[in-house]
């Protein structure tokens, strides 16, 4: 869905980490309507691109604009490969995030419980978050992000550390988050996930975007030799 946050326009976006050029003059446009999966080999710059779009990394060159504004938009969230949860209950983790974002009182309570219910973890609301299984922790992290009602959700390899059952559940929830009107951008190594989930594929190689194309055409006929090798499993 298009709204005030989009379009996203990145022009000549560069990020230098120490002596390493992690992103090199990246141009990227997103309208927020399509599910975007960023693919690439290890160290290609997928996570750096995601963190830069989210605002965790400051670009060392180029511009990043959301609906024409250079300001980092507030209504966005990110879920990481390894969820970082506080040493408190599952519901308290979600309520903490809401509190930080100025949601208090009954509204905070309602949104936290609603988000936990949507990821199917209402029965674990009062359990300590860090003793839950990996899949449950990732679902709490998704609920925490969802409760914030973000306009865009970034996910960095959200299923990489999970067993197939937990990964399928996470994939289902991310689909529901998108269906609820949140733009979704995720990185993944999982070609199966990318095939099932992506509307658009962004292929990144050595810090450069070499392809941004509809998923069907990417998987049918990748334009670059590197993308072909990646699809054949020849790139790490």
């Amino acid at each position: 869905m298009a709204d005030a946050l989009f379009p996203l326009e990145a022009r000549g976006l560069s990020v230098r980490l120490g002596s390493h050029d992690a992103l090199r003059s990246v141009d990227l446009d997103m309208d927020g309507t399509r599910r975007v999966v960023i693919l690439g080999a290890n160290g290609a710059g997928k996570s750096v691109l995601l963190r830069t779009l989210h605002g965790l990394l400051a670009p060392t060159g180029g511009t990043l604009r959301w609906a024409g504004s250079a300001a980092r938009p507030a209504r966005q969230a990110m879920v990481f490969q390894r969820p970082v949860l506080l040493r408190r209950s599952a519901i308290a983790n979600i309520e903490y995030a809401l509190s930080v974002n100025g949601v208090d009182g009954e509204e905070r309570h309602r949104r936290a419980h609603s988000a936990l219910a949507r990821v199917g973890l209402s029965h674990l609301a009062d359990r300590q978050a860090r003793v839950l299984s990996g899949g449950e922790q990732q679902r709490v992290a998704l609920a925490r992000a969802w409760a914030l009602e973000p306009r865009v959700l970034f996910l960095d390899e959200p299923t990489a550390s999970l067993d197939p059952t937990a990964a399928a559940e996470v994939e289902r929830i991310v689909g529901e988050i998108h269906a609820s009107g949140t733009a979704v951008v995720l990185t993944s190594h999982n070609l199966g996930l990318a095939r099932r989930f992506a509307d658009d594929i962004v292929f990144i190689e050595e810090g450069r975007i070499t392809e941004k194309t509809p998923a069907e055409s990417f998987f049918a006929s990748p334009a670059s030799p590197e993308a072909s090798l990646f699809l054949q499993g020849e790139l790490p």
Partner: protein
Amino acid sequence: MTDISASLVLALRLITGADPELWRVVTLSLEVSLAASILACALGLPLGAWVAVRRFPGRRAVIVTLNALLGMPSVVVGLVVYLMLSRAGPFGSLGILFTPKAIVIAQTLLVLPIVAAMARQFVEDAWGEYREQLTSLGVTPTRAVPTLLIDLRYSLLTVVLLGFGRAASEVGAVMIVGGNIDGVTRVMTTAIALETSKGDLPLALALGIVLISVVLALNTAAYLMREWSERRHG
């Protein structure tokens, strides 16, 4: 050897017989050490956490200074506090030299660097794990300070108890600013030093046993609490 055995028996009698002199000294020791620990933690935990999460000019110098203060000779702290609180000093008008308050101040200054330096280390390690997630949620570094202190509460309990142990076991600074006045500023450590020099080994031994027991009990409690916390909170 016979003297030591006899002294040990007498010491145990003093403890089990609830000797009033012994327990007056023990009570005062625990009171001033507890007060100093609370003050040092109230200042040192936020200070250490703040240094851990903030980046500012001179941060390295602050960290080096905190670490260096860990090794500061306690008699020097005692001397500085003495000079500050003596009649000619800037705080002489308070009239608290040779009172328990002076001991609390000296112990606080001794414990503060320990608490701050260790809290910084604990929080900095945790910040490495939490930083991206908390930043992503919109948490500012300033707001992260209480969040991290609460999240690490069971680990930091070890720091608090270490600080208490340091305060309770201090001799030099306490002797200088307290004066070891019987019934007023005589605490376990200064009493042990005095009674040993007087040859009253039973009282010195009894105080030593109580001191060691307190430290041991606190550390056992901290260990058990951390184990429980890891099982419960992950």
